[in-house]
C-alpha cells in the first residue's frame, strides 16, 4: 500500500531526525556538521512526506473514495466543498495529520532561526512529532497494532463483513453539528496553537540542557505569544460555535474538551508574563521554564484525556477509543518525565538572583499574576482529571461547572486588579506617589460604574467585586492606552490585550449570571410578546440548506427575521435544533426551538398514561381516572376495576373497565363502552409506579376550536454578551501587535 508506506517513511525520517539531532548535540566539529546535515535532510524529507499524506487525504476526500474507511466514515457525496474541508479533521486520524503537518512546518521555521540551539530544540521537536506519527502509523506487529491508519480500507476495518475491494456507494456523511462555518476553521486554529506550544517547551528544555537560562527567551517569546493568540482565538471560535449551534444558551461549560484547550492557554499566558519579568530583572528563571514546559505537557495531557477514552463516561463528547491508550500514555509520560525530570535534575544549579525591585512595580504584579494563572490552570486540570483518578478508588468524583466557576471567580477578580495596578505601575515607572495619583481616575470611574451596575441589577456579592475589578482594569488600561498611543503605538499591544480581558470579564458577568431564560408557546400567526418584541411564528423555512421555522420579531416598527433550525437528521437519527439569535448592541435575544405541537397530533389515543385522579384533555373532552378498585386480589385471579369520568359538552359519563390476571398470567382486559360508542380499554397496569395505560376509541377529537399549530421556543435575553466576543478580539489584536514587535527582535544574541 503506497499511501500507508508514505506514513511509515515519514515516521522513520522523523525518528532519524530525532536521533541525528540528539547525536549532533554530543559531537563537535565536522562530525556534528554531518549529523546536523543528516537530521535536517531527514526532517525536511519527512515534512515533504507528511505534506504528501495531507494532500492524499484531501484528494481521497474530495474525490469521494469511499473504499477508505476514513472517507466513508466522515464524508458523503452531497457535502458542499466548504464542509468537505471539515471532514479532514472530523476524525482522530485526520486531526493527527493536521497537527503533525503544522508541527513540521513550524519545525522548519525553528530549524532555520534557532542557530546554536538547533540540535537541542530540534531533538525535542522531532521526538514529539515522531510520537504523533506513531498514532497514525497503523503498523501490525503480531497481535499488536501501533496507531490507526487514515488509509485503512473498508475491508480492513470490517474484515469478513464486506468482500475484498468493496466500495460503498456513499459515505456516512459528516455530523450535522460540524456542518458549520466555525467548525471548519476552529480545529485548524486550535491545532496551530497546540503546535506552537512545542516551541517554548523545546527552548526551555534546551535551556536546561545547555544550562544557559536567559538566552532562550528572546527566540521563544514570539512563538509563545503566537501560541497564546492561536489558542485564544481557537477557544473563542469553539465557544461561539457552541453558542450559535448547540442551543443550550451558553458558550462555555467547563467540559473536559474545552478545559483541554483552556489550560494550555492559561499556562502560555503565564509563561508570557514570567518571560517578560525574567528579561527585565533576571529573576524567575525556574518559574519561566516550568510554565513553558507545563503548557505543552498540558497539550499532550489533554490529548491523552480526550482521545484515549478515559473520559468517555464524563464528557458530553464521548470519544470512541481507537486503541491508542498505551501510545498516548507513553507520549504523556515521556514528555512529563523528560521535561519535569530535567527541571528537577537541574533545579539546584539554576541561578536565582534575588528580586531587587520594589514590591510596587509592574514586575511584581506580573509575578503574582503569572502565579495566579498557573494556579488556575493547575486547579482546572485537577478538576478535569478528578473523575478519572477518583474512579480508581471507588465512586468517580465529578466537578461540574459551578465548581469551576467558584474556583475561577476569586482568581479572576485578583487578576483584574493586578492588570490595572500593574499597567499603571509600568506607566508611572516608579514611585508610590505617582502611582496613587494615577490611581485616582480609574478607581473613581470604576466605583461610579460599579454603583451603576449594582443599580441596574447586579446583586451577587462576588459578582459586584469582580465587576469593580474588571471595570478598574478597563479604565486603568484605557488611560495607559491613550497616553502611549501617540509616539509609542508599537507598545500598545499590552494595554490593548488587557482592555480585552477586562471587557471579557464584564461580558462573563452580564451574560453568564444575568441572562433570563423562559419558554413561550407561539401559536401560528399570533404575535406573542417576548422581551419587548412581538414574536410571530410564521411556518417553515430554510437556513443553510437545513429545515427551520420562521419567526418574525417586531419592535417599534422594525421587523427582524429569525430562522431557528429544526429538522430530522438521518445521519444522527435525531431531531437537530439550532437557535437563531437577534443581535442588538446591548443584548442578544436567543431563540432556541423546543418542539412543535401540531394540531391533532397530540390526540393520539392509542396509548395514554394516567396516574390516579389525573385529568387529560382531548379536543373538548376531559377524561379523568377516578378510581382504582381491586375486585379480587387472589393471586390466581386478580381482578381490578378502573373507573373513569368522561366530561363532554357539560355531560359526564362514567366508564368502568375491568383488568385481570388469571392463572395463566396473561392479562385480560374487558373494554367498556359508553352509549355513543366511546370504547375504553386498559392496556397495562404498572402498580409499582401507580401508572396505567389505556386506549380510547371513538372519541371525536376533530373539533373546530382546536389549538393551532404551535411552536414552543426557549427564549433568553443575554445582556452585553457581545463583550465576550469583542473582548476576545481586542485581546487577540493586542497579542498580534506584541508578536509583531517581538518578532522583529527575536534574533538570538550570541
Amino acid at each position, binding site marked *: 500500500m503506497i499511501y500507508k508506506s508514505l506514513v511509515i517513511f515519514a515516521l522513520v525520517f522523523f525518528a532519524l531526525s530525532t536521533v541525528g539531532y540528539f547525536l549532533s548535540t554530543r559531537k563537535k566539529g565536522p562530525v556534528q556538521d554531518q549529523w546536523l546535515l543528516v537530521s535536517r535532510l531527514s526532517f525536511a524529507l519527512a515534512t515533504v512526506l507528511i505534506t504528501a499524506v495531507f494532500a492524499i487525504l484531501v484528494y481521497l476526500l474530495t474525490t469521494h473514495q469511499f473504499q477508505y474507511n476514513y472517507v466513508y466514515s466522515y464524508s458523503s457525496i452531497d457535502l458542499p466543498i466548504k464542509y468537505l474541508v471539515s471532514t479532514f479533521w472530523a476524525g482522530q486520524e485526520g486531526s493527527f495529520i493536521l497537527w503533525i503537518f503544522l508541527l513540521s512546518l513550524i519545525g522548519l521555521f525553528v530549524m532555520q532561526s534557532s542557530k546554536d540551539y538547533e540540535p537541542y530544540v530540534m531533538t525535542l521537536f522531532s521526538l514529539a512529532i515522531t510520537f504523533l506519527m506513531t498514532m497514525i502509523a497503523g503498523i501490525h506487529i503480531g497481535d499488536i497494532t501501533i496507531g490507526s491508519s487514515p488509509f485503512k480500507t473498508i475491508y480492513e476495518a470490517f474484515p469478513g463483513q464486506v468482500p475484498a475491494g468493496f466500495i460503498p456507494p456513499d459515505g456516512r456523511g459528516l455530523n450535522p453539528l460540524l456542518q458549520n462555518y466555525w467548525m471548519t476553521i476552529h480545529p485548524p486554529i486550535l491545532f496551530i496553537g497546540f503546535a506552537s506550544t512545542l516551541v517554548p517547551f523545546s527552548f526551555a528544555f534546551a535551556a536546561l540542557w545547555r544550562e544557559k537560562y536567559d538566552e532562550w527567551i528572546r527566540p521563544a517569546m514570539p512563538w509563545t505569544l503566537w501560541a497564546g493568540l492561536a489558542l485564544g482565538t481557537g477557544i473563542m471560535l469553539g465557544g461561539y460555535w457552541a453558542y450559535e449551534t448547540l442551543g443550550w444558551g451558553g458558550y462555555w461549560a467547563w467540559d473536559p474538551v474545552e478545559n483541554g484547550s483552556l489550560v494550555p492557554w492559561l499556562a502560555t499566558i503565564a509563561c508570557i508574563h514570567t518571560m517578560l519579568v525574567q528579561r527585565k530583572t533576571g529573576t524567575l528563571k525556574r518559574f519561566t521554564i516550568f510554565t513553558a514546559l507545563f503548557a505543552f505537557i498540558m497539550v499532550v495531557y489533554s490529548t491523552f484525556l480526550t482521545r484515549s477514552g478515559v473520559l468517555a463516561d464524563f464528557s458530553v463528547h464521548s470519544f*470512541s477509543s481507537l486503541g491508542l491508550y498505551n501510545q498516548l500514555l507513553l507520549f504523556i509520560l515521556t514528555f512529563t518525565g523528560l521535561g519535569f525530570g530535567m527541571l528537577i535534575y537541574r533545579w539546584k544549579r539554576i541561578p536565582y538572583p534575588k528580586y531587587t525591585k520594589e514590591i510596587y512595580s509592574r514586575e511584581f504584579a506580573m509575578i503574582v499574576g503569572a502565579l495566579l494563572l498557573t494556579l488556575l490552570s493547575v486547579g482546572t486540570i485537577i478538576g478535569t482529571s478528578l473523575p478519572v483518578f477518583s474512579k480508581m478508588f471507588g465512586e468517580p468524583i465529578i466537578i461540574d461547572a459551578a465548581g469551576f466557576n467558584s474556583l475561577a471567580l476569586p482568581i479572576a477578580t485578583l487578576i483584574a486588579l493586578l492588570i490595572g495596578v500593574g499597567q499603571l505601575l509600568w506607566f508611572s515607572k516608579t514611585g508610590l506617589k505617582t502611582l496613587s495619583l494615577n490611581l485616582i481616575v480609574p478607581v473613581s470611574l470604576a466605583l461610579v460604574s460599579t454603583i451603576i451596575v449594582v443599580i441596574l441589577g447586579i446583586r451577587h456579592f462576588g459578582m459586584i467585586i469582580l465587576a469593580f475589578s474588571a471595570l478598574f482594569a478597563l479604565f486603568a488600561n484605557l488611560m495607559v492606552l491613550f497616553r502611549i498611543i501617540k509616539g509609542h503605538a508599537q507598545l500598545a499591544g499590552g494595554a490593548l490585550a488587557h482592555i480585552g480581558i477586562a471587557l471579557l470579564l464584564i461580558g462573563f458577568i452580564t451574560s453568564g449570571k444575568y441572562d433570563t431564560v423562559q419558554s413561550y408557546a407561539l401559536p401560528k400567526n399570533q404575535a406573542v410578546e417576548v422581551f419587548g418584541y412581538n414574536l410571530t411564528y410564521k411556518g417553515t423555512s430554510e437556513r443553510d440548506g437545513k429545515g427551520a421555522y420562521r419567526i418574525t420579531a417586531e419592535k417599534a416598527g422594525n421587523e427582524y427575521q429569525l430562522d431557528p433550525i429544526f429538522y430530522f437528521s438521518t445521519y444522527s437519527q435525531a431531531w437537530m435544533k439550532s437557535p437563531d439569535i437577534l443581535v442588538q448592541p446591548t443584548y442578544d435575544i436567543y431563540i*432556541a426551538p423546543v418542539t412543535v405541537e401540531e394540531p391533532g397530533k397530540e390526540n393520539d389515543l392509542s396509548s395514554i398514561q394516567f396516574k390516579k385522579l389525573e385529568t387529560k384533555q382531548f379536543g373538548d373532552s376531559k377524561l379523568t381516572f377516578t378510581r382504582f378498585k381491586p375486585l379480587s386480589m387472589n393471586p390466581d385471579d386478580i381482578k381490578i376495576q378502573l373507573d373513569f369520568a368522561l366530561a363532554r359538552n357539560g355531560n359526564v359519563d362514567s366508564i368502568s373497565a375491568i383488568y385481570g390476571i388469571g392463572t395463566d398470567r396473561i392479562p385480560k382486559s374487558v373494554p367498556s363502552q359508553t352509549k355513543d360508542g366511546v370504547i375504553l380499554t386498559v392496556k397495562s397496569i404498572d402498580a409499582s409506579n401507580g401508572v396505567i395505560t389505556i386506549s380510547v376509541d371513538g372519541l371525536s377529537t376533530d373539533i373546530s376550536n382546536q389549538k393551532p399549530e404551535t411552536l414552543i421556543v*426557549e427564549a433568553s435575553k443575554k445582556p452585553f454578551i457581545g463583550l465576550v466576543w469583542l473582548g476576545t478580539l481586542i485581546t487577540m489584536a493586542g497579542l498580534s501587535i506584541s508578536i509583531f514587535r517581538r518578532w522583529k527582535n527575536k534574533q538570538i544574541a550570541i
Partner: protein
Amino acid sequence: MNKKLLAGGLFIIAFAVYGIFAFKENVNPYTNFKGAEKAWGAVQIKGVWDQEKESSYSVENHTFTFWLKDESGETRQIVFSGSKPNNFEHATSIVVKGNLENDVFISDRILVKCPSKYQSEQADGVKFQS
C-alpha cells in the same frame, strides 16, 4: 527561608485549600435512585430513557418530564427544569443531576451522551452498516 518564598508558599497553600472547598461544595456523587433517597445534596444518576413511559414538556413551568431507568433497573420520573435536550432520542445514556423529592427526581442539569460528534460510532469490531 526567604520571606517572599514563604509568602508565596502560604499563598499557594491557601489557594489549594480554597480550591478543595470550591470543588467539594460542587461535587455531586454518582449513585442510583436508591442512593438518592439517602443522599443529602444533589446527586447524579446515570441511566437510559424509558421510552415506554410518557414524556412531556410543559411550557408554563418550562419543565421536561420523562422516565429514567437507572443502572440498577429502577425507573423513576424525572422533572427537568428546561426543555428536552438536543439529541435526547439519540442518547446512549443520560446523566441527570438533582435531588429526589417525593418520589420524583427534580433535575437542573442533564448530560446527554451521544455517540460522539467528533468520532463516529464505528470502532473496530463494530458491524458495517451503510
